[in-house]
């Protein structure tokens, strides 16, 4: 049996990596990927809490989270595609110059 705290530790480190990624990159796709890492770390924490407390509500929360994340990714990626089509570039620092 693995110490449940280890899972939370991994989750925290993963969250740190995700935050670093989201702060340091300006490419939209890379930021999206970093956000997905954040999501994975949150999911891992949620799962380890659920597994620890054996509470059935945690399950539903995880199910909902995975489902919604899938939907959200669809929208974000298609936004990125739209941006790319308009500007030929996916640098977020340039987006504020977008007009029309």
């Amino acid at each position, binding site marked *: *049996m*693995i*110490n*449940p705290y*280890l*899972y*939370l*530790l*991994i*989750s*925290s*480190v*993963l*969250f*740190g*990596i995700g*935050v*670093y*990624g989201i*702060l*340091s*990159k300006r*490419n939209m*796709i*890379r930021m999206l*990927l*970093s956000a*997905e*890492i954040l999501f*994975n770390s949150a*999911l*891992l924490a949620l*799962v380890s809490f659920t*597994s*620890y407390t*054996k509470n*059935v509500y945690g*399950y539903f929360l*995880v*199910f*909902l989270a*995975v*489902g*919604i*994340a*899938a*939907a*959200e*990714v*669809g*929208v974000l*990626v*298609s*936004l*990125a*595609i*739209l941006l*790319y089509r*308009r500007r030929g570039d996916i640098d977020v620092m340039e987006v504020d110059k977008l007009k*029309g």
Partner: protein
Amino acid sequence: MIEFNFLIPIEDTIFLFSAALLLISAVLVIELRSHVYAAFFLEMVGLANAVLFALQGLALIAIFQLVVYVGATVTFILFSVLMFKEAKPVKPRFKLLDLLIGAGIAGLLAVGAFSIYKVSPTAGKPSLDVTLPEKIVSEYGLALFLVFFTLLTTLIEALVLARREVSS
């Protein structure tokens, strides 16, 4: 059937391996130059995460993660990333501050989790895995329907967004 007596604790090995895979792939997602490789390693992150879920006894969640997240979502990201041209090389920025912020947040979370969490190993697998499908259908039918509905609407939304032609 014969019993296997492994010299090495198999569960610990899997845990160490998948945790290492998780963290290394997460770093690679951020640091690799190629977008395609980054998306691929995001898939590895999802895969390792699913293994960790299964290790904690939540097999159904692990499968759901594998099907919906790794199988569909990350494949979709990879598929879309393939259609972009490779990123032009950007000149490196000063990133120590971001690194410090990330490390600080990670440390805070770890300490916070440690203080919330009374470290006492639990015994046995959670038994609620068996009742889950019935419970979902009987008590949470509306929530399930709402999730499907959200998925469907966002899918359509995404399709409409991506299909729209550039007017200018």
